[in-house]
């Protein structure tokens, strides 16, 4: 019974992390970059939104500023990576560490309460069904906007940058600019998810972003598995990512309900992601013999 009661909450959290995972999808899948900035930019989104609302701002401009702050985080990682030539994964780690300090300075302390009874927030834990509707709308709007964007000439050039950089440059595409743009877009979405999470959970905490990248990757991977048998298009894939986040949180709640030591949750998440990331490698290593034979038959 408790588990069923916890379900709407799990789904709401899943939606929020699903939105965050769409940001991860943009870097990890579309740009083919592993961007660790998100652990920091998630909290930046939470902190900016919380501090602005505590200081009397309306929720909408607060969320917009949070999104822009997230884009700045991505911009910084992009500059490290392209202009300064630092490998993407290191660039993200550097920004993440910078953001640890920045986020502390934004809040002035390690956490900031944003109680729903005192502030006019968009979503709150106390009204889960209302939150679910709002979050579902956010997902729809974000997916629609991204579907439009990646169908434009500029968007197609961003996709080409991640797919084949050499080809992209030969077709006159400024790949460095597109990478910086993609990182900014991704982290903007992550920070927006952070702003939503701060409202939903009624607080922003410096530790809330820890392992965000792993949750995001988990959602992307689960999403991939979910839609593997469906006709592939961009809307289906992004919807898969959102559902991936939802499933992650349902499993998470179930595991807590069963009574597993919550200290172990991060370790388990990481191990599950590691196994899924290893699958392509395992396939190549252990099924390669058969593939080669098939190739020979075709030749």
């Amino acid at each position, binding site marked *: 019974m408790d588990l069923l009661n916890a379900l709407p909450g799990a789904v709401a959290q899943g939606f929020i992390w699903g939105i965050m995972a769409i940001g991860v999808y943009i870097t990890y899948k579309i740009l083919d970059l592993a961007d660790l900035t998100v652990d920091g930019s998630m909290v930046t989104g939470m902190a900016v939104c919380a501090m602005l609302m505590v200081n009397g701002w309306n929720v909408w401009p607060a969320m917009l500023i949070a999104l822009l702050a997230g884009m700045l985080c991505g911009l910084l990682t992009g500059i490290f990576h392209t202009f300064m030539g630092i490998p993407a994964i290191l660039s993200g780690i550097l920004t993440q560490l910078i953001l640890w300090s920045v986020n502390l300075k934004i809040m002035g302390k390690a956490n900031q309460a944003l109680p729903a009874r005192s502030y006019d927030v968009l979503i709150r834990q106390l009204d889960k069904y209302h939150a679910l509707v709002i979050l579902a709308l956010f997902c729809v709007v974000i997916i629609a906007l991204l579907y439009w964007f990646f169908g434009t000439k500029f968007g197609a050039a961003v996709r080409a940058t991640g797919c084949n950089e050499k080809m992209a440059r030969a*077709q006159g595409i400024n790949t460095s600019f597109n990478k910086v743009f993609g990182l900014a877009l991704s982290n903007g979405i992550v920070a927006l998810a952070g702003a939503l999470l701060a409202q939903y959970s009624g607080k922003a905490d410096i530790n809330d972003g820890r392992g965000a990248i792993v949750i995001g990757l988990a959602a992307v991977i689960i999403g991939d598995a979910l839609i593997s048998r469906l006709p592939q298009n961009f809307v289906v894939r992004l919807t898969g990512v959102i559902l991936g986040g939802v499933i992650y949180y349902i499993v998470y709640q179930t595991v807590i309900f069963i009574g597993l030591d919550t200290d172990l949750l991060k370790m388990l998440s990481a191990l599950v992601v590691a196994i899924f990331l290893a699958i392509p490698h395992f396939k190549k290593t252990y099924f390669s013999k058969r593939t080669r034979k098939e190739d020979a038959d075709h030749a």
Partner: protein
Amino acid sequence: MLELKNVTKIFNPNTVNEKLALDRLSLTLEDGDFVTVIGGNGAGKSTMLNAIAGTYPIDGGKIFINGREISKLPEHKRAKFIGRVFQDPMTGTAADMWIEENMSLAMNRGKRRGLGWAITDADRQLYKELLQRLDLGLEDRLSTKVGLLSGGQRQAITLLMASMNNPELLLLDEHTAALDPKTAAKVLSITREIIEESKLTTLMITHNMQDAINNGNRLIMMNAGTIILDVRGEEKKKLTVEKLLETFHKISGSSFANDRALLS
């Protein structure tokens, strides 16, 4: 018109691996010239093409296309004037994107890429007509991922893409070398058609000396980063593989058996 003036490229300068890849190389191509390029491994053929395309900066000299100096422009800006096909069929196209998406990327080469839809129905019609000419049955597969196509099909599409919007220069870097002989012949004949139809100024590197003789109006042979032979017009028509090998031997001084391995 393409002009290379004293172009020098040194790899790994000031190390034990220092290599002078292009040695004050000068070359002028008239509009409509179709030049085949041959030479042994390490002669500087690909380095020359990459220097023109801007894959890496050059260490000396200047490069002009129709009077504009391009040697200081970044690679993606030079793409406005240059169409390229690479040796590896995987390089010229984006595998995870559809045929029509790849063609639209090429269609917008050198143009501002804004927030308008990448592909309109009119574009699709144009792509279909272009693909029809390849006679590979690709015109009905606009929304097929390029990664699912064969190497020959991918090179043919890359050729179409490279020749879209009539570039001022077409660079072909051994673009048939990775294909089986039959497919290579087909791609080469498509190449000839496209170049002749649009009168594209072309530099084509090839390992096949017979192809180098049979195609184009001019042939250059490279060795040690410079041009050691430049034959055009009637004189080129009289060339044979044996004569080329002989010339190579005479000028470069390296042994004949090796030359054959390197050149053919």
